[in-house]
């Protein structure tokens, strides 16, 4: 029973992380129908900048709670810098071209960002763990947990709720829905579609960077973290259904719990859990748990 609780707690913490890193990918895909292969690199940039700000901030030694604000700031800076740049300068030119060209384009950008990160931050691990260690810890199920991962559970829930609210209850959500449903028609309705695209891509970039920034205090940052995150977050959103925020949330929880159970009961399977689930889901529901099949009009 106590073991079950621990498995659950670890699984939830991992699920929160999964959701934070995959929300941006599925959001961007949902609106633009472009899978951003540079997602992992935006994540890495957010993480590095977040860590840098933390290190800077820790040196001046102020409030601990404000560190979260710093991490958010890092995500926004990266998103605002990279998002419009990538969308306006590059992506915009290939919307009319084939899907594989769009993938190649984001792949090219991912290669470039990988080295940009290396040029700025080098190859030695960057460590900035203030929030992780200084938020204190709590005893649950007889063992000690730091607060920070549970804080992330809260942030993930909050983010999921916020995105749900924006999509379903705001004017912006309606605009997005219109653009998703039909680009041309929404343009005739007076929606400035290119602006919506820039906005949506930037929002996705901020989300990606936020995932990274919030993770930074838990991990040490090294070159190559972006690629792993891309594959993992793709698996999560493929399970949930590409473009579905709710799907990403459910996918995260499923994978998080399964992976935690695997570490406890079948440690050798740890690496494969996520892919096993993905394969199973796609075998029986190719469009993912919450995805919809599109029928082409002929």
């Amino acid at each position, binding site marked *: 029973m106590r073991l079950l609780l621990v498995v659950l707690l670890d699984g939830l913490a991992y699920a929160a992380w999964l959701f934070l890193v995959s929300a941006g990918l599925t959001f961007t895909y949902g609106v633009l129908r472009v899978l951003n292969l540079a997602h992992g690199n935006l994540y890495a940039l957010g993480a590095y900048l977040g860590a840098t700000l933390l290190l800077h901030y820790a040196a001046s030694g102020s409030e601990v709670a404000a560190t979260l604000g710093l991490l958010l700031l890092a995500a926004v800076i990266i998103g605002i810098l990279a998002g419009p740049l990538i969308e306006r300068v590059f992506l915009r030119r290939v919307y009319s071209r084939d899907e594989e060209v769009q993938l190649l384009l984001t792949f090219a950008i991912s290669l470039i960002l990988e080295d940009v990160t290396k040029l700025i931050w080098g190859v030695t691990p960057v460590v900035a763990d203030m929030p992780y260690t200084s938020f204190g810890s709590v005893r649950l199920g007889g063992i000690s947990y730091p607060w920070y991962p549970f804080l992330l559970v809260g942030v993930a829930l909050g983010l999921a709720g916020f995105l749900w609210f924006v999509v379903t209850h705001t004017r912006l959500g309606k605009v997005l829905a219109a653009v998703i449903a039909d680009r041309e028609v929404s343009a005739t309705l007076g929606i400035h579609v290119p602006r919506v695209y820039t906005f949506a891509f930037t929002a996705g970039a901020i989300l990606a960077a936020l995932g990274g920034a919030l993770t930074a205090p838990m991990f*040490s940052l090294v070159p190559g973290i972006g690629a792993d995150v891309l594959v993992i977050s793709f698996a999560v959103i493929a399970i949930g259904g590409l473009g579905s925020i709710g799907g990403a949330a459910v996918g995260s929880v499923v994978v998080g719990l399964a992976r935690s159970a695997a570490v406890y009961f079948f440690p050798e399977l740890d690496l494969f859990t996520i892919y096993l689930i993905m394969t199973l889901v796609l075998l029986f529901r190719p469009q993912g748990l919450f995805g919809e099949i599109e029928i082409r009009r002929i």
Partner: protein
Amino acid sequence: MNRYRKVLAGLLAAAGLSLFVATAKADPPAGAPASLKIAVVAFLSGPASGPFGIPARNAADVWIEKINREGGIGGIKVIPVFTDEAGPADKVVTEFRRLALEEKVAAVVGYISSANCLAVAPVADELKELTVFGDCGTARVFEEGKHAYVFRTNAHTVIDSLGAARYLLAMKPDVKTIAGINQDYAWGRDSWEIFQRSMRQLKPGVQVVDVLWPKIFAGDYSTEISKLLVEKPDVVFTSFWGSDLVTFSRQAKARGLVEQSIVLVNNTGSDIKDIPATVLIGSRGPGPIAPPDVEKDPLHQEFIQLYKAKYGLAPNNYIAHGAYHFTQALQGLKVAYESAIKKAGRWPTTEEVAAALAYSTFDSPAGIIQMAIGNGHQAIEPAPFAVIKQDPAIGAHVFTEIRSFPAACVNPPDGMKSLDWIDRGFPGAKC
């Protein structure tokens, strides 16, 4: 061009021999090249570059400068060719062929990844290229094959984990339960295999409660740590290094794992400040953790000073052996060349240098190196271990309880495979 230079050098030498004999520090032997090109291969990018590759490259840089300042090898100036080890095996082998066939280097020093050593060794034999491995750990290189042109002037990985077992029992003789958490790749698997087999021999009855295999550079170990906290083993053995060890250390400290269990790291490769106090750590061969005899070695002191002067940091800034291992390789080459010159009375052939290096003994910044096993192609080294302690006086982490197990205690004898030697109860070990 080369031949022209050689002829010219020969003529000059013949004509001016009597004039220069008094002033020249060391006359180049007959048939010597104008310069000695040595390739230095290490990770300059990727996750292994920070803790291992860059320090190793820098160490080779300062050590070659020192060798040249003191007259070069056999009176010939050494010209280093630095290249990056990163990339898949086919790229690494292509690069090795380029160094041997296009750059025509006299010797290749380096390689940190075991996979690259295994890939390069047969090619070195094929191309008859003298190759001295600078860091890689796997025992397979000389236990599974004979390589006439390949040497390794540092100990192989057996000392990391056998040393860890011996150190653990020295520090905590009454250990009852152990758990392992190792990166899921070849070296992590090797480390655990050697450690648990050694423990089984040294203290039968010790129980292995769990072995965890997170993937390399996984970045998050909180679930694994929860499990270790639930299981409460006396000792947690880990082969983590670099960024993985840093992350694991931080999470383990925050969660109280360090207080609950003894954490034992066999081969550190991270900054001492990132590892919590009370953790037991080791390093492959002396260097960053230096027993008294190595500490006193003038080469050790000189190396630290040279490195600091050029790169601003001590070479053991990272508790990584790479930096020391590359100087060992260069030192071994220098000594071998010079003894081969002495024996031949002219510039030696590659085969003569190889013969001189086999079963040789030489001094290095990591102390005395003996090329004792693997047909004289594989060095043995002592295994130094320590406990990390916070020193309030200087406000930083320091090593305490330094202990070094003699080379003959932690290395198998010549001609015996490591795992057989362990399973047979370390016959011939001198501790």
